[in-house]
């Protein structure tokens, strides 16, 4: 018989969400409570396997009595607090944040963002044609994955996944300051000269497509990338005995990228180089 971990029953916190009384387990964020209630709050820097940096600010909500808006992804629900997720103030900030982002980086591969831009009436073009953008050429410096920081929103997820939250490799960090801040290796060295072990856990969490498999990058460049023609098969990685789950994305009989289910209690979406990139050998038909 396997033991089912129950954990301590958590107390419930009662608070007001858009005028309705709701209860959420103690320690929940406002976002957790919103999702439990079926409310849609946009998020970019929040991810299901990481502690969010609350840097993007697209999830802001209005907490009654607070001077500023609060990030739903990080602020914990407190008893008696009154939260509005859809007030004019929150809609305004979300709209402007989306405009600021979409006017400064390429969000064409960020899932969900086009819908929010429409929903909030954001007009990224209104800062004019001379609005400063993050101009970066894609960094293609290894065979496995590409870093295209012209698409990066600086959500910090890759840094956290590479560093103390998962991989403990610390190959990348944020360098520079303000608008010039970039995700970087030391001295912006090529990945091949860095500490990177090609686990690809940064790609797994990147919300914008700034980090992508070289296979995906090349196919997009060639115009052959077609998600609708892809199938996903989740299986167990065959390389070692840990038993990580891998999801193979297949297009035209070729594995085009590998992800890992985030809800796996052992790996939480993390893999190593073999599980992530070892598919080449499966495809080696010679």
């Amino acid at each position: 018989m396997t033991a089912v971990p129950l954990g301590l029953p958590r107390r419930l916190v009662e608070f007001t969400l858009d005028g309705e009384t709701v209860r959420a387990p103690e320690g929940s964020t406002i976002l957790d409570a919103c999702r439990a209630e079926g409310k849609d709050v946009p998020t970019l820097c929040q991810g299901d396997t990481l502690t969010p940096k609350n840097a993007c600010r697209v999830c802001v909500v209005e907490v009654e009595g607070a001077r500023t808006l609060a990030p739903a992804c990080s602020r914990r629900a407190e008893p008696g607090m009154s939260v509005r997720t859809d007030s004019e103030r929150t809609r305004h900030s979300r709209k402007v944040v989306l405009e600021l982002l979409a006017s400064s980086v390429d969000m064409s591969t960020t899932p969900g963002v086009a819908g929010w831009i429409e929903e909030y009436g954001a007009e990224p073009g209104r800062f004019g044609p001379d609005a400063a953008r993050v101009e970066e050429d894609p960094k293609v410096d290894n065979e496995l994955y590409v870093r295209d920081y012209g698409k990066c929103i600086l959500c910090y997820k890759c840094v956290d996944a590479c560093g103390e939250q998962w991989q403990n490799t610390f190959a990348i960090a944020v360098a520079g300051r303000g608008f010039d801040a970039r995700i970087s290796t030391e001295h912006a060295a090529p990945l091949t000269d860095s500490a990177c072990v090609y686990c690809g856990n940064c790609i797994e969490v990147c919300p914008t497509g700034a980090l992508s498999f070289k296979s995906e990058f090349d196919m997009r460049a060639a115009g052959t990338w077609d998600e609708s023609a892809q199938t996903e098969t989740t299986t167990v990685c065959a390389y070692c005995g840990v038993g990580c789950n891998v999801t193979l994305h297949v297009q035209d009989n070729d594995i085009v990228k590998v992800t890992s289910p985030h809800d796996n209690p052992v790996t939480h979406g993390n893999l190593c180089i073999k599980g992530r990139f070892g598919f080449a050998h499966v495809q080696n038909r010679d």
Partner: protein
Amino acid sequence: MDLHFGDSRPTDEERAAVDTLLGPPVSAWDAGPGSDGSGRSEKDLRWARGGHAARERRDLLLPGLHAVNDRVGWISEGALAYLCRRLMVPPAEAYGVATFYSMFSLRPRPTTVVHACTDLACAARGADRVCAGLEAAGVSFERSPCLGLCERAPAALVVRAGESPVTAVVAPAAAGAVAEAARAPADAGPEPVAADAVPQAGQDGLVLLRRVGAVDPYSLDDYRAHGGYTALRRAFALGPAAVIREVTESGLVGRGGAAFPTGRKWQATASQPDGPHYLVCNADESEPGTFKDRVVMEGDPYAVVEAMTVAGYAVGAHRGYLYLRGEYPRALGLLENALTQARARGLLGDDVLGQGYAFDIEIRRGAGAYICGEETALFNSIEGYRGEPRSKPPFPVEKGLFGKPTAANNVETLVNVLPVLTRGAEAFAAAETKLFCVSGSVSRPGVYELPFGATLGDLLELAGKPERMRAVLLGGAAGGFVRPDEMDIPLTFEGTRAAGTTLGSGVVLVLDDRVELPRILLRIAEFFRDESCGQCVPCRVGTVRQEEALRRIADRTGAAAVDDIALLREVGRAMRDASICGLGQTAWNAVESAIDRLGAYA
């Protein structure tokens, strides 16, 4: 953690700079004997400093970067790799930290660096001419945000790297004198004494500034002869709880801008069960137009040391950190001297004044980042991380420096504690004063001390206001403008708030009608764009969009500016509402007040 340090090697000089700070390496693992490829010894194989022991030294990263930059003038790949090896810090992270600070360079540059201030007060007093003169003379220089020398604007700071680095302050600066100082910084004349920045020096009725000019700032005996260390004695007589009660009853609130009750902050820190507790003195005075803390530290440095000791005793801390902005070389020298003297005389150390209380103070230098004045960014900076603000809650009193309960106060707040104790809470409250930094178009710029309740007009009367005043910027770049007809605003936290403006950190920058307001606003916007840490979107991109809009309308008014002003309002509102910290939240304040109160671009 499996660190990868690359192949770059330090020069002998870089290695010496780091080893002077950290001591020689002890094992092949941290770049000691054998690490050059000659092989690890028996001893190395049993040597381990990973995990906790390694992380304990992470806070030496910023001092290490300073050590190299001070010695060589810039930080090479080899130097950074060596420092990382010594401290077991991942190089990518160290690179991220080093590139955060504007005083460091990761590229080769000359050993002598000239920082020419082009910020508000200096711009109002001819910084442009200085820069043009330097360019004409072929002197390379960096345009710098406020150097905190506004009373002597325009100002320049010359830093020459070397085994004993040399600095020279030239203020008021003419291009010729700056060029001369850049050539031979050691020969630049001495700076005027701190009291020269205090037009009221020597007058009766001063509380916080009474010793500035009256004591020899190097002499502990002189400090004691002028009432020094009576507050600490009283504190020991009262005990920590009663000290906090006294400070609470005095009604003292923080002078950094947020005006939080100091007694409550101390109580909240003291009562935390987690330990150790830390005391932090925030001397990262970087708000453009602010220089009062510098004058206090230069004119009465022992007062800062004594006040920190009192505060440390009250909150149950045994270690205090004084975070000093990197642009204050003279204050650094005076404070270092004060600490040495105080230690030698048993006023710091294992047994302060023979009372069985252990307390010592460490100075940490900033390296050119306004945001490090935000207390949680300051903690990150001390800990060896990028100076990015943390989200609150948790608040510092609960999880501050090194994640421990921390009381953080700025210099002015702390030195107020001395009269609270020597005079008693009631007498203190009856005559509470505030320091103001007056600069710009006045005949007697400097630090002024006035009782709470004096009006802006009273202050400008003392400082000698210009005949044709256009506006006054209250509270610095994060503050707001007021009009010449608003001179009866009382200079209190409540009074300024009621008038729809802010006292902020006490900046009073006076502009006469020759000033081009759009240029001042553009300079403010550039400042925020430069100083944004980059963490959150509203501030990182919003400050850029704000600057772009102000640049577009620099020469426009009326209908031609309307669209951009609407855009500014929208971006400004999102920055204020959705930014993580005070920098982004206030980045639009001054521009908004110029539009609404002064009718800029109308």
